[in-house]
């Protein structure tokens, strides 16, 4: 195989991985439309329960066997979906966090977030409605 062909395949592969992992956070009535990456990670780890506008936080995730769940786990917990599921099970068992809402797919995540003030989710494969997009600072 030609060197240039190999390089092209490698670059294409890298760009696909990057695209797949860059999710778009969405939320409704969070009191802000901009958040830092660290603040978002903290929310998805269960470390925030009330937004600054006093709406309760509802974390919305796709099911634990979905690609989105795995990608969120890698980003939020620096781990995998297995550890992320245990992390949330434990938090809920302690009574220190409300359970996330798990939905079948990203279209359900969009619908849920649209209908619930304080809800926040991440989309990887679905186009995010502009009015719900949370800008990452």
């Amino acid at each position: 195989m030609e060197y240039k062909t190999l390089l092209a395949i490698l670059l294409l592969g890298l760009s696909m991985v990057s695209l797949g992992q860059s999710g778009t956070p969405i939320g409704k009535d969070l009191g802000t439309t901009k958040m830092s990456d660290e603040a978002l990670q903290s929310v998805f780890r269960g470390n925030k329960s009330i937004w600054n506008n006093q709406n309760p936080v509802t974390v919305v995730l796709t099911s634990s066997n979905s690609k989105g769940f795995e990608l969120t786990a890698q980003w939020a917990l620096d781990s995998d979906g297995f550890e992320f599921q245990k992390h949330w099970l434990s938090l809920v068992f302690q009574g220190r966090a409300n359970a996330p809402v798990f939905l079948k797919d990203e279209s359900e995540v969009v619908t849920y977030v649209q209908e619930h003030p304080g809800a926040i989710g991440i989309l990887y494969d679905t186009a995010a409605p502009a009015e719900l997009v949370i800008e990452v600072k």
Partner: protein
Amino acid sequence: MGMLLFNGAHLQAQEPVTQFQMFGHLTSTAEIIENDWQSDFSLGEHDFFVVSKITPRISFLSETVVAPTGGMGHSSSGFKVSIERARLKYQHREWLSIIVGKMHTPVNYWNDVYHHGRLFFPTIDRPRSFGTAIPIHTLGLRLQGQNIGGINLGYDLVIGNGMSSTDISDGSLQKSLTAAVHIKPKEGMRIGLSAYRDLIKENSTGSHSGHSSTFHYTMGDANWYPVDLNFELYCFSFYRNRGKWETLLETTWNRNSLSDTNDPDLVSVLDSLGRSDNTTFYAYAGRKVSKLDRIYGLLDISNVSEADLHLKSNKLTKFGFGWSHDFSALVRSQVQFERYTGLAGYEVPADDKWEIKLRIAYCLY
């Protein structure tokens, strides 16, 4: 009432959202005591766990446990049902939630995080302090704040029925007080300190003293005195789970002393007894050897003074090592080799045995 499955496949209704889970475990033990082998298979606690988000700010949590009576395995004769937690929580702000009901006393990491959740236990057994110094439950009022500021400061202030109360009532104006703080400066790390104070009426143990009350004096014991005791407990916890390593340290310092409300005539016969300083130390360190496997070691030391009127004196040590394997996030198996030892001459006889334990813990929903 709507129900949402935690694993997620379906959203059947939206509000209120109620989840039902069951935590349980099966255990097998083989032990050798003075060249005498014993073994058993035992059915452990089964914990029916319910959480409900009633409104966006009000939630309910309960645990109803069906547990073997009289201990595990060959000493058990049946099962009993116990409401271990039933609490309503109103979340006002990040820094203030109000909780009422029966709850785990948030004095240390183990009691606050694991308690009946054996799926989460890093070792098969609870620390020995769980059956002695730790007041495991409180029925009362709790103010809680968490994730405050950059170090994720959390606090818990609890006033509730004391250690000699039952699940139904206390029958006393005296209440237990708990003050606990923790910080989570990094993800996967929690450092906590707590203080607990109670007056144990007539040295009686109620529903909240411990899950293994064989270490407590009770009516009928030769050295049991029906005196009021001041009970103070201070705890330090350190937990870290990052990368391949997971560690947990739990220490307690417990001071019991005669209350000045006691009858002088009764107290005078106790001579030098009545004021004691007791300590416990538990350490766990585990290292991941694969995504699903972890090897670990543990050390559990208990030291209860001979002067204590509430707890039977002892100097006991347990150490061991084990291997845990997660079949999934919901099923964990552990095998553990343990050596029990101690010093003779105390109220609780020195242990001298080896044990091999196998446990499978699971969560269903």
